[in-house]
């Protein structure tokens, strides 16, 4: 049983908290609970492999919380969790504090990567508020797009220059649960939006549970992780209204 590579762990993390930071730090609580449960105190070996699935998930969370270098933060947090889990197992001691200290260490790393001591972008809700109001003002023309289609020059109108918001950084999409067809459709829509000035004033009224999807997948231009999220993201994409500058006018600028 390799807990670090199990989809179960990802599921537990996903529902553990509403903020990306909370989800990252829950890793330590979940591992602690799991390793201290009576049934796992057998000789369990943690293979010293690179936990690609977990690191991938943590990279997403790190990106969402605005880390300077999400990949390194995720890698580092998983390495720390791995060492602390090994220590917990090695001591065969249910009082082991390794994972709780590891959690403090991880928290400090998050702080180091987000500089400002968690004021400006305290929670997803705050960031969402900022993103939504920017949308009202400027539209969402300044979409970040994946490398695959970024070879075309970005024709972003000057007035729609968004301030960089950590939450809307893009991540390379390597989701497997989506078909190439779904991805193509979404990219087509993003591409279309990129040509114009787009708005969705109703964004302010989106229910909480959809905010993350809206931020990541509609504003961020990132492909959703699964089909359920895709359906939600698409429903918002449908509602986005765009004004398109005629091609000739755009070209004459």
């Amino acid at each position: 049983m390799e807990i670090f590579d199990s989809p179960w762990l990802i599921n537990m993390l996903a529902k553990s908290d509403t903020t990306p930071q909370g989800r990252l730090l829950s890793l330590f609580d979940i591992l602690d609970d799991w390793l201290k449960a009576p049934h796992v105190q057998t000789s369990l070996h943690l293979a010293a492999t690179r936990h690609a699935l977990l690191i991938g998930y943590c990279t997403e969370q790190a990106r969402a919380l605005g880390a300077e270098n999400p990949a390194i933060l995720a890698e580092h947090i998983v390495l720390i969790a791995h060492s602390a889990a090994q220590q917990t197992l090695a001591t065969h001691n249910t009082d082991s504090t390794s994972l709780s200290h590891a959690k403090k260490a991880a928290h400090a790393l998050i702080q180091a990567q987000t500089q400002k001591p968690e004021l400006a972008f305290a929670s997803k809700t705050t960031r969402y508020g900022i993103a939504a109001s920017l949308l009202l003002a400027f539209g969402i023309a300044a979409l970040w797009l994946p490398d695959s289609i970024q070879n075309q020059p970005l024709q972003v109108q000057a007035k729609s220059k968004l301030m960089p918001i950590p939450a809307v950084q893009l991540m390379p999409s390597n989701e497997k649960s989506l078909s190439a067809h779904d991805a193509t459709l979404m990219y087509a829509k993003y591409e279309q939006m990129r040509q114009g000035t787009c708005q969705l004033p109703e964004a302010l009224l989106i229910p909480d549970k959809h905010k993350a999807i809206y931020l990541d997948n509609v504003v961020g231009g990132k492909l959703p992780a699964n089909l359920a999220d895709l359906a939600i993201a698409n429903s918002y994409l449908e509602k986005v209204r765009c004004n398109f500058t005629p091609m000739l006018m755009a070209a004459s600028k």
Partner: protein
Amino acid sequence: MSGLREKILTTASDLFQTQGINSTGVDTIVAAAGTTKMTMYKYFSSKEILILEVLKQGHQDFQSWLNDKLNTNSKKPAEKIQKLFDYIEEWVTSPDFHGIGFIKASAEFPKEENPVHQLSSEQSLQFRRYISQLATEANIKDADGLALQLSLIFEGAVQAEQMKRGSGAMKYAKMAAKILIDGAPTH
């Protein structure tokens, strides 16, 4: 002669750091050291003994290097623990850094019952005690707790750096260490 023993030890140490421990054969070591297997086995009765000796030597060098740096450059106890990560970063990011013996060894020998694994765990613990001692001198209440946090950060950063040079992990490790040290309650 002991000169030859030294030569084998440093050659093996270089090879282990650059090529990995498991993937470096005894033949390669003796060829690089310009000696014979017979001679090598006279000093080190097996490859495992050689690995253990390399680790011991490496750890001793690391500890005394760190000690010298800290003792010559920082006088106040509270300053030492703050400086610790500065020196480590300096060293880890230097061009000839190839990893830290005990961290590499425990990754290459993951089985708890393996003597190499046991020695590397012991060395990791020694390093943690060393940090704990610095924390105690700096009047920090939970010196052991802080030492555990710092050693986890440090070992993680070195592992990340071993996987990918120039990863930047050490920079954040240093910043995180400062946050933890500054935030630790003192007596």
